């Protein structure tokens, strides 16, 4: 298909879309950590049950999913026009719109905007987009402190750790570990702090209150932006979002271009889908919506940064494009048997789990995250859970083909696959192969191992005894 510009993926050397090692290597470490395994199992089991309960209450859930998927598919088809409309409406309401082609540019735009205010500290609402681009590190390099105000992000930041879940970034930590991190890293913390979650949340409240009141600039992401009205929406639980969106003089919102929705009315679908699919609530405690600047109420300067960073490349792939429907609910993580065991860090990117396994390699180009599309059994639980019906198994298979076709050949695997395909297209050769396989298995050690690279499977499983007859031999002898 001819296009005028080749797709441009997210640049290397900035942001957090690429891991240092392959998924199987990183997963091996998580699998060997029994505490992590227990934490993950407890958390994903709990949230699955909560979510299933409130989804069962919503008798029109399937209709909402269908509508949500359709709104997003429609949005993607006319994304450039909708973004221009959004820009016009935000500007008309007193906001300033910036465009960033990639992480480097977005970081520079935000850094310049903060510098222009004279502030050396910003408060932040949890935002996947700013994590994706590594904004905190960029601000740090410019001498600006970024304070994460979401409880889980604070736990991650104080623990010098990495987030491992889209919605609950500290899901890999239990209360005892969180207490230790607070006692070690939180200035002014009460040394008698217990590991009661209520006490831990109260400690975060005390620690952050003064910061909220004294910091003049906030940085947020956005869950939705309405093209028709210029309205932005942030969905949250703790009230740290409201603090950041209300108290400072300047608000800078960084948003992936795919977060736009066409109309105000479209929010009626997503505000029903998102809370039930993500935290398993009928509605999240707080949702803030604002349109540009309101005189006398909230930030008096508002900047909106529209981020590409590989999204246009995802959009160019008509099969892969559906990953841009994602509303970051993380339902797919919570139902994924692979995520539950390997944990979020194994995916290397800020986007873990099934959606990460398809979104990250598309944003970076398949070469940089080639092991991720294989980090799934294709069991399909993610597709059933997705509130916007992203067919993740279909995407995984699609990306596996891209991974194979982007690799130089031959590899041991490609030779084996080509040989198998050759044989299987010739029934006589195939039947001869079946007999040969049986003979070699009978000659070898019965029922135990396979040669590399298949020996990983037989490390913990026995192969069945080969049958005396194949089915086709039995059939021929009837």
């Amino acid at each position, binding site marked *: 298909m001819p296009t005028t510009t080749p797709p441009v993926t997210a640049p290397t050397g900035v942001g957090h879309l690429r891991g240092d090692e392959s998924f199987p290597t990183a997963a091996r470490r998580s699998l060997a950590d029994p505490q992590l395994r227990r934490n993950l199992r407890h958390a994903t089991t709990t949230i699955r049950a909560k979510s299933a309960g409130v989804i069962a209450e919503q008798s029109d859930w399937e209709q909402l999913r269908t509508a949500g998927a359709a709104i997003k598919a429609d949005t993607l088809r006319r994304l450039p026009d909708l973004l221009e409309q959004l820009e016009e409406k935000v500007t008309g309401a007193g906001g300033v719109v910036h465009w960033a082609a990639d992480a480097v540019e977005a970081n520079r735009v935000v850094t310049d905007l903060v510098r222009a205010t004279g502030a050396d500290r910003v408060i932040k609402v949890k935002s996947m987009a700013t994590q994706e681009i590594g904004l905190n590190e960029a601000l740090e390099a410019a001498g600006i402190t970024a304070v994460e105000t979401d409880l889980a992000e604070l736990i991650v930041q104080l623990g010098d750790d990495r987030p491992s879940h889209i919605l609950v970034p500290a899901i890999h930590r239990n209360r005892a570990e969180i207490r230790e991190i607070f006692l070690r890293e939180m200035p002014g913390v009460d040394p008698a702090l217990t590991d009661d979650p209520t006490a831990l949340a109260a400690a975060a409240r005390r620690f952050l209150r003064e910061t909220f009141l004294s910091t003049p600039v906030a940085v947020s992401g956005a869950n939705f932006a309405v093209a028709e009205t210029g309205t932005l929406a942030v969905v949250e639980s703790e009230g740290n979002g409201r603090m950041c969106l209300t108290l400072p003089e300047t608000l800078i919102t960084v948003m992936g271009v795919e977060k736009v929705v066409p109309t105000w009315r479209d929010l009626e679908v997503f505000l029903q889908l998102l809370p039930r699919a993500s935290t398993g609530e009928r509605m999240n405690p707080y949702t803030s919506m604002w349109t540009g600047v309101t005189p006398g109420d909230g930030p008096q300067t508002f900047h909106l940064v529209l981020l590409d960073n590989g999204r246009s490349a995802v959009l160019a792939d008509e099969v892969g494009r559906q990953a841009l429907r994602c509303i970051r609910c993380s339902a797919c993580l919570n139902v994924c048997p*692979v995520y539950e065991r390997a944990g979020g860090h194994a995916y290397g990117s800020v986007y873990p789990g099934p959606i990460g396994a398809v979104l990250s390699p598309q944003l970076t180009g398949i070469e940089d995250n080639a092991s991720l599309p294989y*980090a799934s059994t294709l069991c399909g639980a993610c597709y059933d859970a997705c509130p916007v019906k992203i067919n993740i198994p279909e995407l995984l298979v699609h990306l596996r083909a891209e991974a194979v076709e982007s690799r130089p050949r031959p590899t041991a695997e490609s030779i084996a696959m080509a040989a198998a*395909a050759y044989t299987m*297209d010739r*029934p006589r050769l195939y039947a001869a192969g079946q007999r040969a396989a049986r003979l070699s298995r009978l000659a070898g050690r019965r029922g135990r191992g396979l040669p590399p690279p298949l020996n990983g499977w037989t490390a913990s499983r026995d192969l069945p005894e080969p049958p005396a007859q194949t089915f086709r031999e039995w*059939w021929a002898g009837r």
Partner: protein
Amino acid sequence: MRIALFVTCLADTMFPQAATATVRLLERLGHEVVFPTEQTCCGQMHVNTGYQREAVPLVRRHVRVFDPYDVIVAPSGSCVGSVRHQHATVARRAGDVRLASRAESVAERTYELSELLVDVLGVTDVGAYYPHRVTYHPTCHSLRMLRVGDRPRQLLGAVRGLDLVELPAAEQCCGFGGTFAVKNPETSTAMLADKMRHVLSTGADVCAAGDVSCLMHIGGGLSRLRTGVRTVHLAEILASTEQSGTVSVASAGRS
């Protein structure tokens, strides 16, 4: 009814007892089973590993071999899932629109065993006898790609002598996933360990499923642990009668 058997390469080569049981069951119910011998493999392994181009001749072969038949059955949710959800995609990706539409037509006539019995043949009591404590693992592709729902359980529920026990966390994947078990063996093993724990917790002496691939995985693990629990394909249970006995079923295809 004349029914073409899509045996699947894995059942053909490694688990013929599932396929022979399918043949004997359908014949016992008064149907004619034909086996097109030019069939080999549906290409799922290639597609799921990323070798879609290599899969094109296999899809073409499968479509050519099965196109003449009105009703096609396979004792595998996974392979039927591949036919239904992957063949046309592979053809379209290769630019062969005609093959894609023929593949869709074949897919419409292809059924997983429990679908064929319940939906097409309209039978849930197949007259089977199987005096064992059985737990049923609904394989992911039967469950979520094909939506076979409770059809296998309806069939098992009508088997005389069979004590069906609920498998905890039944809908969780066993960790096989074909290429997944090879590329991510440690994660796969962790998933298998949980599946085996749940199987053993039921006290069943047989773990049944509609896919020999998942059974190979679960059975391989249970065998390594010397648990004494056997894995048996749904077709083998349904093919068992008081006359045939279960001993001969276990060794069917090896005589």
